[in-house]
């Protein structure tokens, strides 16, 4: 069953207003655009006066000076549509959004519970009228056919399962195929105005004409097949996901940490029970504490893996509420898990088992992050750059992350300094590898070297005056191995004499 609310935005706006307003005023809703306010929805009196959706408000005002203008709220319309989709599950087990103003309900095999399809549609119409919503509903064997009938068919039309949709709907305009405006324009230019016209064309010709259109909204043939039920068209059902939330209103404001810890313990246990009932584990937990003097303390923690362990949650929260200002005391505490993931029920860890077997990796990372900060725990991943200091990036630890190493043509040092340190050098030849260099106050004599490995600057990132680097792997007389480079070459016209830097320590 497809339900179309043609005036959803206007009806929603009217529901929020006192009913005293005369219903026949020329009401329009406008949205802000770069060219000024533009009408997004116009009521029937306003349309009679000349205003159309999509018009600039200034143009509409010129036609009808008496327009009543109110701002539109697309987000609230969307939220209302989501609520309607859930509400529409009273007629069928699954329902899906059909943005911007429609709902599709799967009513296969349930019509007899309402006394037939006609009675079901009448029930839906009555229920929507009770909500003050204008609606057009229709029932058809496929979602595409139901949509076409609801939007473009006669009011109250329905189609029996035995009918061939292509025959029953042949008189509807091609716009009933849910196509893009560009494709509709193309079909219009080709002279194909009705669904029946498309059926007269050889299928091979349609395939050839639209062979590179993968999107169903741009391919009339695919839409025809969906309408006729020849290809599947999965609908994405909406599911209500309540946020697990527990709160405690306190008789006396809490000012001391021990009492607050006890309250938090109760809250955590209650939240865990609620999560357990849902079969979920929390990934993000939000703690809000309302102060008597009108202030709220909010603390958020994120967990590396879904968890339902109250002791773990409490330990992480305890770090976070250190040093929060209680003022004259907290009177309300609320714990919620806005982000939860499925977590199957398992045998709870006994204390002794946890002590003997250690913590899990996710628990360990959580504890480190809470104390040291989220950025302190990281893992290196390769990055597409040939500049050594940019060839790796630090990301949050995720061992499932697939990475591809570059081919190791050149040896790299074990460690890189965060900033390459300048070294003073003594050359044997004017333009070559130095014989001695001084770094951190000590003189090193180079006995072996390999290089240069010349790495040019990335011209798409750096200035034109950036100089190239010549890297050498060296070993000094006492066996210490380093990675040094010379910035620039003599006479490259990008500054004075080349400078030497030490960047890495080799194993």
């Amino acid at each position: 069953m497809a339900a179309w609310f043609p005036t959803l935005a206007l009806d929603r706006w009217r529901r929020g207003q006192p009913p005293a307003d005369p219903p026949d005023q020329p009401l329009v809703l406008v949205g802000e655009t770069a060219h000024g306010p533009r009408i997004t929805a116009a009521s029937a009196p306003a349309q009679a006066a000349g205003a159309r959706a999509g018009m600039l408000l200034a143009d509409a005002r010129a036609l009808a000076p008496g327009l009543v203008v109110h701002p539109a709220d697309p987000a609230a319309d969307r939220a209302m549509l989501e609520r309607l989709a859930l509400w529409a599950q009273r007629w069928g087990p699954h329902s899906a959004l059909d943005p911007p103003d429609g709902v599709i309900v799967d009513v296969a095999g349930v019509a007899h519970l309402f006394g037939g399809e006609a009675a079901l549609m009448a029930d839906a119409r009555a229920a929507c009228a009770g909500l003050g919503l204008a609606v057009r509903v229709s029932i058809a064997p496929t979602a595409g056919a139901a949509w076409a009938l609801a939007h473009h068919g006669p009011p109250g039309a329905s189609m029996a399962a035995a009918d061939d949709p292509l025959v029953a709907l042949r008189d509807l305009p091609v716009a009933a195929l849910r196509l893009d405006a560009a494709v509709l324009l193309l079909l219009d230019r080709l002279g194909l105005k009705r669904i029946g016209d498309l059926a007269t064309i050889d299928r091979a010709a349609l395939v050839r004409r639209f062979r590179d259109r993968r999107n169903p909204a741009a391919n009339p043939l695919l839409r025809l097949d969906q309408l006729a039920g020849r290809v599947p068209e999965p609908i994405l059902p909406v599911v209500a996901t309540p946020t697990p939330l527990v709160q405690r209103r306190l008789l006396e404001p809490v000012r001391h940490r021990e009492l607050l810890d006890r309250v938090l313990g109760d809250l955590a246990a209650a939240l865990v029970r609620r999560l357990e009932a849902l079969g979920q584990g929390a990934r993000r937990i939000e703690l809000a504490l309302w102060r008597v003097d009108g202030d709220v303390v909010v603390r958020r923690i994120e967990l590396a893996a879904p968890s339902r362990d109250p002791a773990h949650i409490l330990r992480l929260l305890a770090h976070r509420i250190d040093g929060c200002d209680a003022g004259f005391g907290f009177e309300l505490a609320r714990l919620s898990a806005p982000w939860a993931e499925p977590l199957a029920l398992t045998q709870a860890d006994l204390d002794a088992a946890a002590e003997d077997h250690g913590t899990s990796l996710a628990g360990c990372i959580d504890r480190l992050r809470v104390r040291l900060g989220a950025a302190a725990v990281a893992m290196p991943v390769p990055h597409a750059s040939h500049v050594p200091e940019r060839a790796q990036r630090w990301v949050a630890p995720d061992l499932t992350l697939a990475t591809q190493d570059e081919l190791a043509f050149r040896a790299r040092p074990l460690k890189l300094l965060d900033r390459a340190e300048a070294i003073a050098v003594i050359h044997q030849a004017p333009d070559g590898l130095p014989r001695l260099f001084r770094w951190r106050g000590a003189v090193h004599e180079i006995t072996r070297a390999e290089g240069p490995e010349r790495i040019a600057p990335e011209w798409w990132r750096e200035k034109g005056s950036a100089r190239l680097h010549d890297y050498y792997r060296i070993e000094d007389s006492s066996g210490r191995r380093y990675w040094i480079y010379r910035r620039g070459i003599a006479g490259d016209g990008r500054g004075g004499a080349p400078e030497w830097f030490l960047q890495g320590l080799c194993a």
Partner: protein
Amino acid sequence: MIRFAPPSSSSARRGGPPAGWWRGLARHAAPDPCPPLRQPPPIGAAAPRCLHSEVFARADEASGAALALMLANLATPGDTRPWLWVQDKAAIRRAGRPCRAGLPAPLRHRLIHVAADTPADALFALEEAVRCRDLAFVIGELAGNPAALDFTASRRLSLAAERHGVPLWLVRLDARHDLGSARMRWDVAAAPGVPPRWNRDAPGDPRWRADLFRAHHVQPGQWILGDDGYGAGAATADHGGVVSDAGARSLAARAAAG
């Protein structure tokens, strides 16, 4: 593949006292009944079960971390669990951060790095890490002799590592040999590498002069350890090439002097 070679001379150790300086202190002890032994270094298959080791090294060379990585790689062959590398801020400033492309190939993709601000935070991270059953091993890197790393902290780490079975190598950069409860304490410095076969002028595979100056269950000694190609699965101990100075057991003398 690991190679062993005799050290050129123990007095060549940079900055150390001349060889045999401690013999005078141990003069009145009973004569050692065993003559100097040629023993393999206690690494890889020959290593005793030791879950907390310390490696002392200078901050201006990467020998400490490299030796710790080689020992860890040998101690956990075939392990595919992640491993943790904890550094404090001073260690990062003085000795740099790990470079992924330079790490041994089997360890590269499993590294989780923790950058702690203070030594106390680093010790907290190390203790949490050795309690984690999903880690193959833990490497810590601390610079100097911070007040937070006293004997009690060291003992806590040892107990936690032994209780949960996660090996820990603690690299101490530019640090005195202070009191610690590590079961094996190494002193390591870079040694000239093996010249590569095809380019005699290039720096070769790394070698280190490793001095095991305190150990439970095994005899201390000095070796030159080398590692080529990093991925060495098993150590094939070439006993003939290893020289051990059995006299180097005089722990009390050295601890008193250090």
